[in-house]
């Protein structure tokens, strides 16, 4: 059968060369797109490390001197810290709020960061430095690396200690337990104790796990927090699941509007985390959709090319196919013959595509961060490409093959 099909293909090589060329280009491009999608898929299986569902992000506004609500320092003696602490307290007292926290230089899904290096012994490692209040772990449901609950992490956070992510712990303390060890923080020169290890976190769904260090933010009075700092802080609330609905922002606003006018502070904006997430992920998603569109475009092209070529071929080979039926080929035989031809053509054009793919991967022309280009990824990518192309090929050959099987042997032979 195999040799027979090969002979058939060779005999109509002039016609087949177009199809082989087309399939080769498409196989290479499709592999590239599918490899990208596979890498993203693999990364999705790694945990995000925090939970943004039912979390709302608040902006705290500060009255400007132009506002009639503005209280100058002479009449308003309570400092910014006092106002902010009262603000948080009132948030926590709201019946639909489960927990609330404030963060500095750390907002999930917003590009606002601070980074520094930590040193232990001779090892120095880079890390994000995130100032948060202890309830951060409860609001974003961040668990301990050992599986302990967010509430336990919250308890372990205090002004003198830090909590670091597992990845950083592994880098600084290979094979050792990091809890209780002292490290030097290069951002302020302090030596600090590690009180706990939290689970690894991604920056967002499309990045790998990153090193992070959590320090307690100090909102005690007289610690230097100014009114001008407040609009830059992140204020987050986790609300109870049954309170989270489309009307939440509106009702919460109406409820809290006057309650949250504290000193020179007011509630400027409240938006669900999903808003920030959508905005932040937009570019990543656009790229993802582009690759999906490219894959669909190539598959449609394969379909049309195969359909066209085989449609024409079965028409042209009617006498031959008729003769086959006349001398006893069943409909199944004919279909198998045509599908066999298609498969062989695809395989022939797929071989050079494998070489191209390997070279692209080897030269790291594919995206290798956060998912490495491994043999496994290479093989899976090729398998996916081959399977999709085969499926498309089958659909493309199906209609012409059905037509071919309807041939009356007498008619076909008559033509001959």
């Amino acid at each position, binding site marked *: 059968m195999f040799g027979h099909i090969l002979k058939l293909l060779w005999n109509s090589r002039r*016609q087949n060369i177009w*199809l082989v060329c087309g399939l080769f280009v498409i196989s290479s491009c499709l592999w590239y797109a599918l490899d990208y999608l596979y890498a993203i898929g693999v990364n999705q299986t790694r945990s995000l490390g925090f939970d943004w569902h039912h979390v709302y992000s608040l*902006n705290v*506004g500060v009255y400007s001197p132009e*506002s009639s609500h503005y209280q100058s320092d002479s009449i308003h003696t309570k400092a910014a810290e006092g106002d902010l602490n009262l603000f948080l307290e009132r948030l926590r007292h709201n019946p639909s709020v489960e927990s609330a926290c404030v963060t500095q230089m750390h907002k999930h899904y917003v590009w606002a960061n601070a980074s520094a290096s930590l040193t232990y012994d001779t090892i120095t490692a880079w890390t994000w430095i995130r100032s948060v209040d202890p309830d951060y772990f409860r609001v974003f449901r961040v668990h301990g690396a050992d599986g302990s609950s967010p509430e336990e992490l919250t308890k372990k956070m205090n002004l003198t200690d830090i909590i670091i992510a597992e990845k950083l712990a592994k880098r600084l303390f290979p094979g050792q337990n990091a809890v209780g060890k002292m490290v030097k923080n290069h951002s302020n020169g302090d030596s600090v104790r590690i009180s706990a290890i939290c689970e690894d976190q991604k920056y967002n769904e499309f990045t790998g796990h990153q090193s992070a260090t959590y320090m307690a933010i100090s909102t005690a009075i007289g610690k230097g927090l100014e009114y001008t700092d407040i609009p830059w802080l992140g204020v987050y609330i986790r609300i109870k699941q049954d309170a989270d609905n489309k009307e939440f922002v509106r009702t919460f606003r109406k409820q809290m*509007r006057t309650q949250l006018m504290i000193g020179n502070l007011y509630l*400027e904006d409240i938006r669900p985390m999903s808003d920030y997430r959508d905005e932040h992920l*937009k570019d990543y998603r656009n790229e993802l959709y582009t690759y999906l569109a490219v894959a669909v475009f190539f598959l449609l092209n394969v379909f049309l090319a195969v359909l*066209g070529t085989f449609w*024409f071929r079965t028409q042209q080979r009617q006498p031959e196919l008729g003769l086959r039926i006349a001398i006893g080929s069943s409909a199944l035989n004919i279909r198998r013959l045509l599908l066999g031809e298609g498969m062989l053509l695809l395989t022939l054009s797929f071989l050079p595509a494998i070489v191209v793919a390997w070279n692209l991967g080897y030269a790291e022309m594919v995206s290798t961060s956060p998912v490495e280009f491994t043999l496994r990824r290479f093989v899976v990518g090729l398998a996916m490409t081959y399977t999709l192309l085969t499926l498309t090929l089958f659909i493309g050959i199906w209609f012409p093959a059905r037509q071919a099987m309807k041939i009356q042997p007498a008619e076909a032979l008559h033509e001959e």
Partner: protein
Amino acid sequence: MSFISIAGTALAIAIIMVIIIIFRAKTANYEPEVNRDRTLYVKWGSAVSKINKDERNYSCLSLYDIQQAFYPLTTPEAVTAVYTYGRMLSSVPGTDEEINSEVLYTDDAFWRVFEFGFLAGKPYDAATFKSGLKQAVICESAARKLFGGVKEAIGRRLDLNFVAFTVSGVVRDVSKFAEQSYAEIWLPYTTNSNICSINITGWGEGHTGSFKCFLLARSADDFPKIRSELASSIAKMNANSKEYKLDIMDQPDDFFTQMLHKFSNGGTPPAKVIIRYCVIIFIILLVPAINLSGLTQSRMRKRISELGVRKAFGATKWSLLWQVLSENFLLTLIGGMFGLLFAYVGIWILSAWLLASDLGGEATMNGSMISLWIFFVSLIFCLVLNLLSAGIPAWKVARTTIVNALNERN
């Protein structure tokens, strides 16, 4: 068979046209950015130490920079400075209606550099701007939400972050593709003492801040003149600073360059983007062209004896070539028409992805997307695709000798 050719063409043209239409929508002149082709943009600034080149920041311009080096320019028709504030809480006293609106602080020249469609009222003028009177221009949708109508908004009080403003004008909503002028509420920046304060002591000596500056030239031919005038103006300002100077890093940019200049410390060079687009479009054309070539060749082989007869009766190689190409062009044209149609349907259905704006959210489809220009461009791409897909088969057919053709040997 024809159906397959048409479908293949439509697919390729649809994708190319989606790219072109979106590209056009992002770069063409339309309200309020009607002067994009004669505007220069300075979005970024960097304060550099005069002693140590490595000591620098990457940021935008300060009001001090703009007042010292940009406003005094004489070659441009108008110079405007803007400050993007972000979302402000807007409320109408006496009602409990509160919305968050995007606010852009501007000067009065802003209304000359950009041409907004005023539905009612007028923009704040130079006198209002100078004296810092609290007047606001708001967009139609904000006016409807807050005041229930366009005319009703004029002269009414509007509280923005609890500061009282008076609405002086209402403009048509702005597309989010108009990134430099987009906002929902526009205010004179002189109404905010925080952003207006100038401090030339401390790091950077007052250079760099959060302002952007746009220079409207009388025509694009003035660009080199404006660039050199700006350079000498900045040099003059820098001479007055002791330790730091302002570096505007190859700016001012023209519209296309600034669109890719997304970060203060750099952007994508336009040439790179153009090459990338060309490669993408080439691949999108090439793949269907190879497929269609196979089909065209099959079709021609069926008719090879007909073409042989023509040749026997004296048709030249060129006339045969022309015949095959023009016959094929009809199919390509039909495919192209469907392709353009699919492109519009695609943009409409996938707007959340295709019309996503850098400002967040999505831009609406607008008039610039449907034009004679677009139609003409798709025609050109049809022609190219036709040449690519029928060129080789036509050449082969035209070359076949009469005897071979009549004997159906190709």
